[in-house]
């Protein structure tokens, strides 16, 4: 490693920390954590929705403060999601599914306290380690990213599309459908290069395109509300949490799982569209295999909460590497972070590190601060969050509907957008009902226009020669990798020697 790059990174991080612990920024981090947890703890509201719902809150702040508050919201939302997964067995996002397996068993056995504690501390440990690695890794990725031209970016985006389709959701075809529909939605509006309106049907409100946050709120918040109203029944749950304190035995069993979970989660988060579904399941499988008494799994084994929670948080934090360095969101949550940046006209990517270093490093540092604030805030407040779950469902979801409308209207003061929200909500309901993953749609909406722009730029540079797309080694190998992943199911079917157990 080139020590000067690392040194510069550490220096920049120290400066960032100074920005993050300024009293008003600390207050924003604190507020963000508080609100993020309060909203994230609501059933059916995952971290991505929480970010979408709270995005308008930060609209009037200056970028640094807003991003710091956003980081707090993000961690709060993540933790809130785990809380519902454990107490109500309703994971708000795919990353908490595994948490609910053992976590809810523990809660049913009266051990909700230790389950919540190991989730919180595990997330803290993983978040801390992962943020540190992000700080060290991001400048390196930036160095590489600066070598990228339009052709390389287009190849990278193609790879991201393929991996998103393959990894998010269990059905590739449904994932592809969601992704393509998202890309198509992103086409609506004035074409940036020629000034021609596309797919707008002459409706002036559509000339500016369809807001990502609007679609996210429609798909996630309204769609989820519709689904819950139509299909979900009462679920029973445990409201008494018991003591939060972890026993010595809990600690002994948790900490190796936290570290292993972090190690498993981080690499998956870094690769485009690695997602957190695979690493959390992987961590669960590893913990089960390494456990001295695997028969405890399925009856509330604390390792089964500690490992996946750490893997989840490490993966989500690691997703900031491609998000900040390349402008590539690899999860719905990262996509909402990107939408937060775009709100200020900032386009994440290698140049952001150069043009807005205090913002980027302030954000990374505020992740560290947010992590600490969250731990300090949430362990004592578990009882309060649990009580939030006592809000009647009808008021809870009615509030979510009103909040989604407020957030949508607040973006550009247009009642027309509320009709779009309604449409997106209906589509989100249809997708959930048919088992389509939602995240590829949001990612397609964000990355689609980028991919088109880079493709057209690349072809302009190569003077219309399609071979220009594969001219460089980087773009050729990225496209080759994308092709390989896309064809993998067919290839592996062909050359599989025998069925191997996971």
């Amino acid at each position, binding site marked *: 490693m080139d020590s000067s790059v690392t040194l510069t990174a550490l220096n920049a991080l120290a400066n960032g920390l100074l920005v993050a612990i300024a009293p008003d920024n600390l207050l924003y981090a604190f507020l963000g954590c508080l609100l993020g947890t309060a909203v994230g703890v609501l059933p059916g509201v995952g971290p991505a929705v929480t970010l979408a719902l709270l995005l*308008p809150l930060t609209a*009037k702040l200056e970028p640094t403060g807003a991003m710091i508050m956003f980081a707090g919201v993000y961690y709060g939302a993540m933790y809130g999601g785990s809380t519902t997964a454990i*107490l*109500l067995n309703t*994971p708000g996002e795919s990353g908490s599914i*595994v948490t609910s*397996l053992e976590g809810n*068993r523990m809660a049913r056995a009266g051990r909700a306290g230790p389950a919540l504690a190991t989730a919180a501390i595990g997330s803290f440990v993983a978040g801390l380690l992962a943020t540190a690695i992000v700080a060290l890794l991001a400048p390196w990725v930036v160095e590489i990213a600066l070598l990228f031209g339009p052709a390389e970016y287009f190849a990278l985006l193609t790879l991201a599309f393929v991996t998103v389709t393959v990894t998010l959701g*269990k*059905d590739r075809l*449904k994932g592809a*459908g969601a992704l*393509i*529909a998202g890309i*198509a939605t992103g*086409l609506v509006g004035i*074409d940036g*290069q*020629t000034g*021609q309106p*596309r*797919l707008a*049907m002459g409706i002036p409100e559509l000339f500016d395109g369809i807001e990502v946050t609007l679609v996210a709120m429609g798909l996630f918040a309204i769609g989820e*509300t*519709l689904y819950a*109203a*139509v299909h979900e*029944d*009462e679920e*029973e*749950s445990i409201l008494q949490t018991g003591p939060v304190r972890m026993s010595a035995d809990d600690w002994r069993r948790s900490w190796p799982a936290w570290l292993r979970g972090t190690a498993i989660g981080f690499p998956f988060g870094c690769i485009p569209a690695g997602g957190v579904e695979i690493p959390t*399941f992987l961590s*669960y499988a590893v913990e089960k295999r390494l456990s001295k008494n695997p028969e405890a799994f*399925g009856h509330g084994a604390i390792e089964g909460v500690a490992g996946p929670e750490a893997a989840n948080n490490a993966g989500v934090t690691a997703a900031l590497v491609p998000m900040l360095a390349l402008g590539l969101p690899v999860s719905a949550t990262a996509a909402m972070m990107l939408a937060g940046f775009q709100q200020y006209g900032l386009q994440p990517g290698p140049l952001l590190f150069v043009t807005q270093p205090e913002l980027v490093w302030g954000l990374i540092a505020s992740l560290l601060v947010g992590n600490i604030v969250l731990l300090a805030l949430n362990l004592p407040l578990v009882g309060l969050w649990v009580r939030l*779950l*006592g*809000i009647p*469902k*009808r*008021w809870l979801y*009615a*509030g979510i*509907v*009103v909040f989604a*409308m*407020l957030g949508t*209207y*607040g973006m550009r003061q247009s009642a027309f957008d*509320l009709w779009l929200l*309604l449409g997106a*909500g209906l589509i989100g*309901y*249809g997708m959930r*009902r*048919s088992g389509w993953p939602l995240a590829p749609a949001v990612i397609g909406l964000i990355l*689609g226009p980028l991919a088109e722009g880079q*493709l*057209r730029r690349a*072809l*302009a540079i190569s003077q219309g020669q399609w071979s220009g797309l594969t001219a460089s080694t980087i773009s050729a190998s990225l496209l080759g990798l994308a092709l390989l992943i896309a064809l993998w199911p067919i290839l592996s079917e062909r050359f599989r020697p025998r069925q191997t157990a996971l």
Partner: protein
Amino acid sequence: MSAPGTPRALLADLAMPIALGGGGLFVVLQAQGIAAAGGYSPVGPSFFPTVIGALMLLIAPLLAFGAWRSHAAHANAVQPQIGEPIGEPISEPIATAVTTPRTHALGWLLAAVAIGALGIERVGFVPAMIVAFVLAAQAFPRHSTTGSVATNSDATNTSGRRGRTLLGDFAVAITFALTTWFLFTVGLGLRLPAGWLSALPGA
């Protein structure tokens, strides 16, 4: 989902592929209407939409076939097992309990958002959101707490209780709408239409 294998379930499962196919057709047709830009441009503004629309048209029938096949499989399959082994990774994020879908709930919620869209600029944020909140609340059963065990007595609601619930909905709606108004306009400087309540601080 609910009652797999019935013709109604098949129709519902075909809704998304049909929507995708329809969308693809729309995108492809619209793309043909985009004028090619003058001057030198290897790939014009209509190229990408044409490709994406074509992909939608390609995937939609495949998805429809998948829906039809899983429907056929459900129709002559045994009921899915209730107790899935916990140790195995569950592929479906949220376990969907087979219950009677409350389709009318869809109407209440759509009405809520529609009222919000129609009313926010005509009567103002607070009144429109109060009505939207109350409408949305009607989509959910009474006395349904996210964290409480349902009791059988819920089924026998008298009209008196219904009235009390509605009153409660309004009270919460008014409090919620006003709190949000103050938080966002006075507190955060967001501009929202005041409508009928132009005397409110923050308007």
